């Protein structure tokens, strides 16, 4: 039997009055093929354009063997290397004729391949995608060449101190879990990639399987017609059997620190990370930490106003709550104008954390965060492409758009005490990692006046 779920929700012209509508306002169909592949189709009013996002629930989290980090991201590249039917040149030329915008990206938890194009090419795009997901073929020399493009990407990103900072935060905060490495992977592993052709074949065989994959189709489409195309080209794909044994991170029992010596002049950076929870739409944890990040560290927060607007000791302060499959990091980052102010800025952040642990926030302020979260989502869903992109992030976590509404229901239920409890539970000293980054000279402009 093929499970089938069709949901029809409120119309798109939503408004957030006293009784808020569902934040994901589109009717969609969600269907599973017998092989485990999931298809989510979302018809929209945006004419002519269709966005196909194929989400593979495999990211750097799945890279469990030592010395072999960065392979999920490497596949983002290899998947453009072609098949017997569509060698890479033919694949690229076919996409070219379609006038499609096509790309892919990888994160901790998933890889997504996306193509945006005119609706008459839906059949061609889904068939070409089916072909490469089932029949990817690349020889060792091509593999070696592509691994150099990954090194090129590392080089491109390496000009930014934030890339290095991110590497060191993860490496310091985690001991065993695969979130220890970034999605790019450790540099030494990237440099060794050319020698790992056989492993790459194994990686593809494990993870490029229907049970890991969800096809999201958004735009000027009809669900029945999309399903017929998917049945035709994707139903022969064989289910796999691999389940990664992802190491569980042991509880951290003491705070950690690290410093990055950046080779060229830059403004110093202070980053403070705490071990957070795994993503959840059934408890208040994820929602409470999201709200906390806004209340304590966004541009309207007291801390931001003090450090960035009034004293002008920092030129940016931000807080990010985790939304990962496994427990991720709640991270606060501040770029400081003078090295001499780094300790002060760090202490101000720590004091802020303490204040949120000690007393509940103002209920009216929490309401503004709730409003913001809803409008933010509504404002970003202004075309089929971004609707598909947003859906993909959630599909990577729970394989259904329903999780968006479930999470927003949790935001709706939050109380000031929930924020206080989340701060007290997760933003604790023993699970904290502080990483600082400093360059050879503090050359920036400004400072406390």
């Amino acid at each position: 039997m093929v499970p089938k779920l069709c949901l029809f929700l409120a119309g798109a012209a939503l408004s957030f009055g006293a009784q808020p509508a569902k934040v994901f306002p589109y009717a969609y169909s969600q269907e599973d093929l017998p092989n485990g592949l999931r298809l989510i189709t979302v018809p929209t009013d945006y004419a002519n354009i269709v966005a196909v996002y194929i989400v593979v629930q495999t990211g750097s989290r799945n890279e469990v063997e030592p010395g072999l980090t960065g392979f999920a991201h490497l596949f983002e590249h290899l998947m453009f290397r072609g098949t017997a039917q569509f060698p890479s040149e033919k694949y690229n030329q076919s996409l070219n004729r379609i006038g499609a915008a096509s790309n892919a990206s990888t994160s901790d938890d998933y890889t997504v391949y996306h193509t945006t194009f005119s609706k008459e090419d839906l059949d061609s795009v889904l068939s070409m995608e089916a072909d490469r997901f089932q029949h990817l073929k690349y020889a060792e020399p091509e593999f070696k060449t592509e691994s150099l493009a990954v090194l090129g990407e590392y080089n491109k990103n390496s000009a930014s101190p934030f890339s290095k900072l991110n590497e060191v935060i993860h490496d310091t905060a985690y001991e065993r879990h695969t979130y220890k490495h970034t999605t790019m992977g450790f540099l030494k592993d990237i440099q060794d990639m050319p020698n790992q052709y056989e492993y790459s074949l194994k990686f593809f065989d494990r993870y490029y399987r229907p049970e890991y994959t969800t096809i999201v189709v958004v735009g000027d489409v009809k669900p029945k017609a999309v399903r017929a195309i998917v049945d035709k080209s994707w139903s022969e794909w064989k289910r796999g059997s691999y389940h990664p044994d992802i190491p569980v991170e042991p509880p951290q029992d003491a705070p950690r620190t690290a410093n990055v010596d950046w080779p060229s002049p830059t403004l110093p950076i202070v980053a403070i990370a705490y071990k957070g929870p795994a993503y959840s739409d059934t408890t208040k944890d994820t929602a409470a930490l999201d709200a906390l990040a806004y209340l304590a560290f966004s541009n309207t927060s007291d801390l931001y106003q003090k450090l960035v607007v009034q004293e002008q000791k920092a030129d940016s302060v931000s807080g990010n709550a985790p939304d990962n499959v496994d427990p991720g990091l709640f991270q606060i980052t501040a770029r400081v104008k003078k090295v001499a102010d780094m300790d002060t800025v760090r202490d101000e952040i720590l004091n802020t954390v303490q204040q949120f642990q000690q007393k509940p926030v103002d209920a009216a302020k929490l309401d503004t965060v709730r409003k913001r979260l809803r409008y933010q989502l509504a404002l970003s869903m202004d075309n089929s492409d971004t609707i598909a992109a947003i859906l993909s992030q959630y599909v990577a976590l729970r394989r259904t758009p329903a999780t968006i509404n479930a999470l927003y229901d949790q935001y709706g239920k939050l109380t000031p005490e929930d924020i206080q409890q989340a701060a007290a539970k997760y933003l604790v000293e023993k699970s904290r990692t502080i990483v600082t980054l400093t360059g050879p000279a503090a050359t920036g402009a400004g400072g406390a006046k």
Partner: protein
Amino acid sequence: MRSAALLILMSICASAQIRTVALPGKSPLVTFRIVFTAGAASDPADKPGLAYLTAQMLSDGGTKDLTYKQVSDALFPMASGVGAQVDKEMVTFTGSTHVDNLQAYYKLLKGLLLEPGWREDDFRRVKDDAINAIKVGLRGNNDEELGKEVLYESIYQGTPYGRFTGGTVSSLEKLTLEDLKSFYRSQYTQDHLILGIAGGYTPKFLEAMKADFKVLPEGGGLRPRMQAPKMIESSRMTIVDKDTRSVAFSIGYPIDAIRSRPDYAALLLVSSFLGQHRMSSGVLYDRMREKRGLNYGDYAYIEYFPRGMYLMEPQPNLARHYQIFQVWIRPVEPPTAKFALRLALSELDKLHENGMTQEQFERTREFLSKYVNVLTRTKRAELGYAIDSIYYGINPYNDYLKAQLAKLTLADVNQAIKRYIRTDRLVIAAVTRNGEELRKQLLSDDPSPMTYNSPKPEAITEEDKVVEKRPLKLKPENIQVRPVGEVFQ
């Protein structure tokens, strides 16, 4: 069927009319793009960065009645903001809001643009940010962008385009709040204004908005005398020396092919064939990355495309009277830098020599004819492109480009290739460690053989034997090495 032409209610200014581009629709969102056609080219010669800093001060400051904090607090629950994009000829303020919040949002937007707060503490913060954007953001964090801006600076030296839009550190340090107010008074005028709005607003709302902006002074303020870049007499290169892992190259020269010019479509097709950002079908991408693994990507453009590190496609409202043809070689490993430059130039040589085939021409034309729909898929983009079309005096961009492409023949394109694609008289910018060492390498005609980590087809190895010896024809007096700390100082 959508027809942008029918939707645009445009009125070119008679004396009492403000130019307006309006795309009404049933969306619950409303998008604004408010353009002043007075950008960095209008900076006084001794005050580079003035247009930039003025725009930042408006978007990131307060209003006469509300402090920056009060504005931020009011915008926060709406999840809205006001952004400013500054280029040579346009300053664009952008923002979107849900119709629920339209009146409240517009009141803030209007306050920021028409009754700015001009507070000293905001000025100090915004100025620091502008200085750090050069010292840290551009010099420190983004080698590709740094190389591209150095390229533009070199090509346009001595003209109003020749000063970096974000200014120089020394100029920014000297600018006063009075300078900004004076620029605002003289340049933020009705004649320089184009109001853009799209989405679910009412006709009455639009009329009220037009009336509001009539408080700006009439007339046009001082316009800069447009000045074409000087002829490039022989190839020249700037090497920016900084501590970095790899070598980023930008190559370019001026072209006479802005959107309204006859060769625009042909040359757009040629640059698309050479390669667009993050598209794997381009020639440069195929030859340099796919076949040889030299780097992450290689592209060609005929219009200014800033912030490419973070964007998938160029943004609208960067319209200019003058554009350059440019090749963008993303960072390569230092030992392969000389070969990479030789290879990119060899591909341009080949294109100049052989032109395109009928199949390549048709495929690229088909791509562009459809891709233009993708480029304008959001109301935000559609509105931006519509404003640019007014500036260039062309039909709505989708219709215009499709019509121009439909008329093109292979012969037209190959003529454009002969006329525009060249490898002599180039301007090159590189960002690297050990700049003097790169300079020495590039001045020598020694071969730069490639070694690969895997066997290559004979066609590639044979081609490499030619490429590795390709003369670069750079003269010692034309290669300048600059420490990064001097750039935009």
